[in-house]
């Protein structure tokens, strides 16, 4: 057993976690930044292709209030306006701070340049490089967090649970992947920055570690979730032919720059049938495109691999090369000649609008427990604007780190080993159980595959009460089944033990999404019900989820904070 102590523990080292660690350190706190993967390598930020929305107004007049209006419109009435306003206003500060840190925002004539993206009224999406903004941002933050003397970075420590004593967060329990040693960390404040749940879906655009950890840890610690019925599907994820070395959402920048056309298997453009705009434009919002493609599939007009065609064949080679240069050759190496062939695309799970319920200081209802980045629910309502996720990571990360440091500073550490003992015993039982595995290999990979298929088919883009209810039954059974699965008997880098904890989080998160989706009997934003196709103004509320004492999830409804009812 290893025991560590700090002022602020940040769980998850993507964009939000790294920014939280930087902010906590510069506000006078000792910090531990822990990630089950490697610092600044996992999570969603590093996967970002391009767009980072901020109303800098360098090229065209813009204001954060306009950005806020666009964000609220996209959110379909469910945004927490306080959080949305913080996001839009402080995105400017964070983008400028990153500029000072020499992240390298693309410039034209000395001005940081912004592109137009669906749902925005002004071209305001800044970027570093049209396919590599995420890696550039992650690298910049890795450098900054390494310079923060009071921040200790730990790669390869998986946090399982927040430790709560008398209703207050006092640290966490986890384990060191390299040698399976249990780790306890005493902390005056804990920031959950391990958001995202896209791994729950068979088709997804995320890193392997995005499996709902933050939501599940928050629930188990007594915090509240909101808007869990709203995972976002990216409409045109790459499906076929097999493409390696590029992220499946890579067609987005192509569409920003070149438009592109979508066809079903019969060669027809179809977005107009669903309220969108066809032809060489990229104006239709993500939820409508996802809906349209899924409907075409259901109508039997799908491509061989279950998607639709994205075509740039109407463009000349010169236009393609002028826009994307060497990327055209990279695609050719993948057997994709855009002048000759179309590619198959499909919606893929991409982002989660819902998440942990916090106030403007990123505090949960559990004192000492904070959330940051995609882990936070509310700022994006029922549908997120393209470009709002990366500033959300920066802005909410910075705030969570700053306010957690303020809370933690000067507070006496009050580690209560008794409060951690249940979590430690559970971990030791999992490690010990391996010796009883009877030589059988834990079938955790198979369980993962089943959950991903189940969520994709029944809790995906188009939902019905019947599909959701059958998914809920199976998820609850799987939670029970997981209890009796033994990990493999390895001590070093035991991925089956990690799979077990990942699945524990994933199943609780999946149950939250499914239950919330059953309860919302309307279609709104990213939540589309085939049995309730219209938006019901009477359901303009947020749904709140909590864990009951017996471990079941309970929900109720809250009026939208700051929004019109």
């Amino acid at each position, binding site marked *: 057993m290893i025991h560590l102590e700090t002022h602020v523990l940040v769980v998850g080292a993507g964009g939000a976690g790294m920014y939280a660690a930087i902010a906590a350190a510069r506000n006078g706190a000792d910090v531990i930044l822990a990630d089950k993967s490697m610092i600044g390598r996992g999570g969603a930020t590093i996967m970002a292709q391009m767009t980072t929305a901020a109303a800098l107004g360098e090229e065209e007049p813009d204001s954060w209030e306009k950005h806020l209006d666009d964000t609220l419109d996209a959110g379909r009435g469910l945004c927490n306006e306080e959080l949305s306003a913080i996001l839009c206003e402080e995105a400017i500060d964070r983008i400028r701070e990153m500029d000072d840190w020499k992240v390298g925002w693309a410039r034209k004539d000395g001005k940081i340049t912004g592109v137009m993206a669906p749902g925005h009224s002004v071209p305001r999406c800044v970027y570093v490089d049209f396919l590599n903004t995420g890696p550039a941002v992650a690298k910049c933050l890795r450098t900054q967090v390494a310079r923060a003397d009071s921040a200790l970075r*730990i790669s390869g420590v998986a946090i399982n649970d927040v430790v709560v004593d008398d209703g207050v967060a006092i640290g966490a329990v986890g384990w060191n992947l390299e040698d399976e040693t249990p780790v306890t960390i005493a902390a005056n404040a804990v920031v959950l920055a391990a958001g995202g749940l896209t791994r729950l879906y068979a088709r997804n655009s995320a890193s392997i570690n995005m499996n709902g950890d933050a939501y599940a840890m928050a629930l188990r610690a007594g915090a509240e979730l909101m808007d869990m019925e709203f995972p976002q599907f990216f409409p045109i994820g790459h499906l076929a032919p097999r493409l390696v070395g590029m992220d499946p959402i890579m067609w987005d920048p192509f569409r920003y720059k070149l438009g592109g056309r979508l066809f079903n298997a019969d060669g027809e453009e179809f977005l107009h049938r669903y309220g969108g705009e066809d032809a060489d434009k990229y104006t239709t919002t993500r939820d409508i495109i996802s809906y349209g493609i899924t409907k075409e599939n259901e109508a039997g007009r799908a491509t061989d691999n279950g998607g639709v065609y994205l075509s740039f064949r109407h463009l000349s080679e010169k236009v393609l090369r002028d826009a994307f240069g060497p990327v055209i050759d990279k695609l050719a190496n993948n057997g994709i000649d855009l002048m000759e062939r179309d590619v198959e695309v499909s919606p893929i799970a991409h982002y989660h609008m819902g998440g942990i319920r916090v106030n403007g200081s990123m505090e949960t209802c559990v004192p000492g427990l904070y959330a940051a980045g995609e882990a936070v629910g509310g700022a994006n309502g029922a549908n997120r604007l393209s470009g709002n996720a990366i500033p959300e990571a920066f802005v909410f990360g910075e705030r969570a780190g700053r306010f957690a440091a303020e809370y933690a500073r000067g507070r006496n550490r009050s580690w209560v080993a008794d409060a951690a003992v249940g979590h430690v015993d559970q971990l030791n039982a999992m490690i010990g159980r391996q010796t009883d595995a009877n030589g059988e290999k*834990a079938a955790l990979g198979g369980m993962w595959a089943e959950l991903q298929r189940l969520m994709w088919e029944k809790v995906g883009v188009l939902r019905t009460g019947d599909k959701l209810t059958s998914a809920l039954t199976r998820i609850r059974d799987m939670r029970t089944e997981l209890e009796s699965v033994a990990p493999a008997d390895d001590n070093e880098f035991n991925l*089956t033990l990690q799979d077990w904890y990942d699945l524990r989080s994933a199943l609780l998160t999946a149950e939250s999404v499914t239950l919330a989706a059953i309860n919302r009997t309307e279609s709104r934003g990213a939540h589309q019900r085939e049995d309730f196709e219209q938006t019901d103004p009477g359901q303009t509320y947020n749904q709140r989820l909590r864990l009951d004492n017996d471990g079941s999830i309970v929900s109720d409804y809250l009026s939208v904070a700051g929004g019109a009812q």
Partner: protein
Amino acid sequence: MSSPPKNVPITILRGVPEEETYEETFDVPYREGMSVLDAVVWIRTNVDSSIAFRYSCVNANACKECMVAVDGKTEYACTARLSSDGNTVGPLTNKVLIRDLVTDIVPPKENLRTILAERGEG
């Protein structure tokens, strides 16, 4: 029409430093254009979840965690194409082996054991 699926043999070098390493061969359904990472993920999902392997970003060559030796050559598993005749996949030979395909590529300052050793607590 796509051709009928064929299986290709993937040999994985397994084991921990203190024991003799061994080879284990798996038959993986081949799909045109698939990566070495696709093959390892298929094995973990369908045959043996206990293979130790490090990766995060799946196939975008963004996280840089999945570096292994493919037929003795250092490659990112996510961008190395699987040969239609199969491949041998092993851990990096110039890094300390942890288990199977996982080597110690974590910067020393981020490694908990190294941190504790420097504090005299390890």
